[in-house]
């Protein structure tokens, strides 16, 4: 033993080394937290800088004359005859409109009007056709449209596409970009907020500018609904039984251990199970959010059960004693006293389970929700559950693997939407916890 220092002002060597160890440990902790924060900042920075562009899109304002001679040769406004005109029939209208555009804005270019019309997205003609079919009486008049421009032009406005990068590009030429510059200066071509990215559906490989996450969002929403309706009541009921009523014996021990094991099972295994049971045996439709929801419910159940049991376990036994002591039945003790006190914990666990399920992609792979092009939004509740659809993370995955860099931007944008949902759900969990938490 080292002799103890005589003075309180002088620390002995052992105390000094203890103090140093203390300081080192604090430094490690601080360094770990700082590293975490830096990584988080890098992650958020990348996501936002890459994805924010998806929320903006470039539009070209065009005055289109809906010529009767092209769209309704007989002039009788018969909807069936008008429908026979394919999108090819609408191309000349756009070319004519482009010609007028060049004149009105006095664009200096050697290009023909047809090449200017090519600046537009491929969805422009179908938008035009839909507009006419919706109300044939519009034929013969002229109307002003804000058409999406194609992804190259949009990328040029956003800085993704440059004159150097299009040297070998067959989709766009330097002359077209010159025209674009003039159109921007004239105010006909503008970049603005694009609500369709949030509300719209996925589009084909050729039209990244028209793709949106709305339909995938509906798919995710339908799945979350299924998870909430199935996993919450089943999970809470199971945990109430296991925690409050079940006898403690080997069987319940076994069940307990296996619930913990299930929570650690890789999610793709649940996907295989879903494929084997729900699709191959029960013949539920492929790619349907209902099946996705069922699979995710199975995956979320252990999380909900574990967190609900922990919440109920943390209710002091004296509260149960008190309730039983005044003659409450066990069920009354649970429902009147234990559950209300455990509710914040149960809700938090459920929301965190839901958030996990929302971001899950792997099990959806096996039931056909990854890779499905969700190009039409479901119209009824039944469709939302049973019609093939995709989910937010699956949509992001789908976009990330497509060739056009414009889709890459949309994948990042989809990640932003997903993150906003996750943050919102966690915020709700914290709020609920604060709101309902009671002390005893």
């Amino acid at each position, binding site marked *: 033993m080292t002799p103890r220092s005589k003075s309180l002002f002088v620390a002995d060597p052992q105390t000094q080394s203890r103090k140093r160890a203390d300081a080192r440990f604090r430094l490690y902790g601080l360094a770990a937290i700082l590293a975490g924060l830096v990584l988080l900042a890098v992650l958020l920075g990348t996501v936002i800088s890459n994805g924010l562009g998806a929320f903006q899109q470039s539009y070209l304002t065009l005055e289109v004359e809906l010529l009767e001679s092209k769209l309704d040769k007989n002039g009788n406004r018969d909807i069936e005859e008008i429908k026979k005109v394919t999108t090819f029939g609408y191309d000349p209208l756009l070319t004519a409109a482009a010609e007028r555009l060049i004149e009105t804005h006095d664009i200096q270019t050697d290009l023909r009007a047809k090449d200017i019309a090519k600046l537009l997205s491929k969805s422009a003609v179908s938008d035009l056709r839909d507009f006419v079919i919706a109300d044939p009486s519009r034929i013969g008049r002229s109307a002003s449209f804000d058409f999406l421009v194609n992804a190259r032009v949009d990328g040029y406005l956003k800085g993704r596409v440059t004159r150097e990068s299009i040297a070998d590009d067959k989709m766009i030429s330097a002359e077209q970009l010159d025209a674009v510059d003039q159109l921007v200066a004239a105010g006909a071509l503008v970049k603005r907020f694009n609500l369709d990215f949030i509300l719209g559906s996925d589009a084909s490989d050729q039209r990244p500018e028209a793709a949106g996450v709305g339909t995938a969002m509906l798919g995710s929403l339908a799945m979350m609904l299924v998870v909430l309706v199935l996993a919450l009541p089943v999970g809470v009921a199971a945990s109430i039984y296991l925690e409050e009523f079940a006898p403690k014996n080997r069987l319940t021990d076994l069940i307990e251990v296996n619930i913990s094991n299930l929570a650690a099972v890789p999610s793709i295994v649940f996907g295989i199970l879903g494929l084997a049971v729900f699709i191959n045996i029960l013949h539920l439709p492929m790619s349907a959010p209902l099946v996705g929801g069922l699979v995710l419910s199975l995956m979320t159940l252990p999380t909900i059960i574990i967190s609900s049991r922990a919440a109920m376990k943390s209710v002091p036994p004296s509260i149960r004693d008190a309730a039983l002591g*005044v003659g*409450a039945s066990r069920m009354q003790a649970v429902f009147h006293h234990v559950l209300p006190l455990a509710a914040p914990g149960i809700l938090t666990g459920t929301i965190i389970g839901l958030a996990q399920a929302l971001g899950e992609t792997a099990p959806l792979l096996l039931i056909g929700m990854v890779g499905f092009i969700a190009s039409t939004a479901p119209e009824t509740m039944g469709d939302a559950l049973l019609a093939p659809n995709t989910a937010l993370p699956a949509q992001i995955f789908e976009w990330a693997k497509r060739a056009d860099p414009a889709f890459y931007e949309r994948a990042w944008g989809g990640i932003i939407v997903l993150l906003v949902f996750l943050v919102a759900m966690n915020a709700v969990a914290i709020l609920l916890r604060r709101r309902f938490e009671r002390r005893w």
Partner: protein
Amino acid sequence: MSASKISARACNVFYGDTHAIKDVNVDIGSKSVTAFIGPSGCGKSTFLRSINRMNDTIDTCRVEGTITLDGENIYDPRVDPVTLRARVGMVFQKPNPFPKSIFDNVAYGPKIHGMATSKSDLRDIVENALRRAAIWDEVKDRLDAPGTGLSGGQQQRLCIARAIATQPEVLLMDEPCSALDPIATFQIEELIDDLAKNISVVIVTHSMQQAARVSQKTAFFHLGELVEFGDTDDIFTNPSDPRTESYITGRIG
């Protein structure tokens, strides 16, 4: 003293393989206070909890023999522990009010037993119980305040009010004053005296002075056995068993 309210005959309690209560025979009178004393772990709380079947909640616990309330065996399969507990109330060692308002704490028992027909009825029951528990004057202006916000002594009296609101015939108290200061203890003891005018009170206590002060009968437990049971005055002045004498004079325990 009138006929006995509760009688235990050849009562044995086991926790798994542990024999916690060994062959206890005891008669507890009505409208009186009976004290259970003994060193820690001697089984007095276990026996107390057997009287209103609170031990049912412990899976491994097993009770043999009979305990009768007014001549009816409470361990008869026809007995619903819920009705039993409405007639045999309990107050615990640590005050355990529900995390609800003072009013709701007391009203809970009467509500679940359907004792009140109207709101004003319920208010009367609550007021009456709080008055009998000698806490009415302290809380009458804040019945909506949480019961957990009261002081320890007040919380324990609130728990007593909650227990007597269901009009029990027997009140079991498991060391009700062990967490309280002397003033709060004094208030509870006064209250016990008062309650015993109408109902039978059984109290487990570590304080021999308390047992001497409040009880008419005392039972001394040691290692799961009921060593001696008799009038409190006799137990403390003239114990017949040497173990009792050792305990009350402070040599064991």
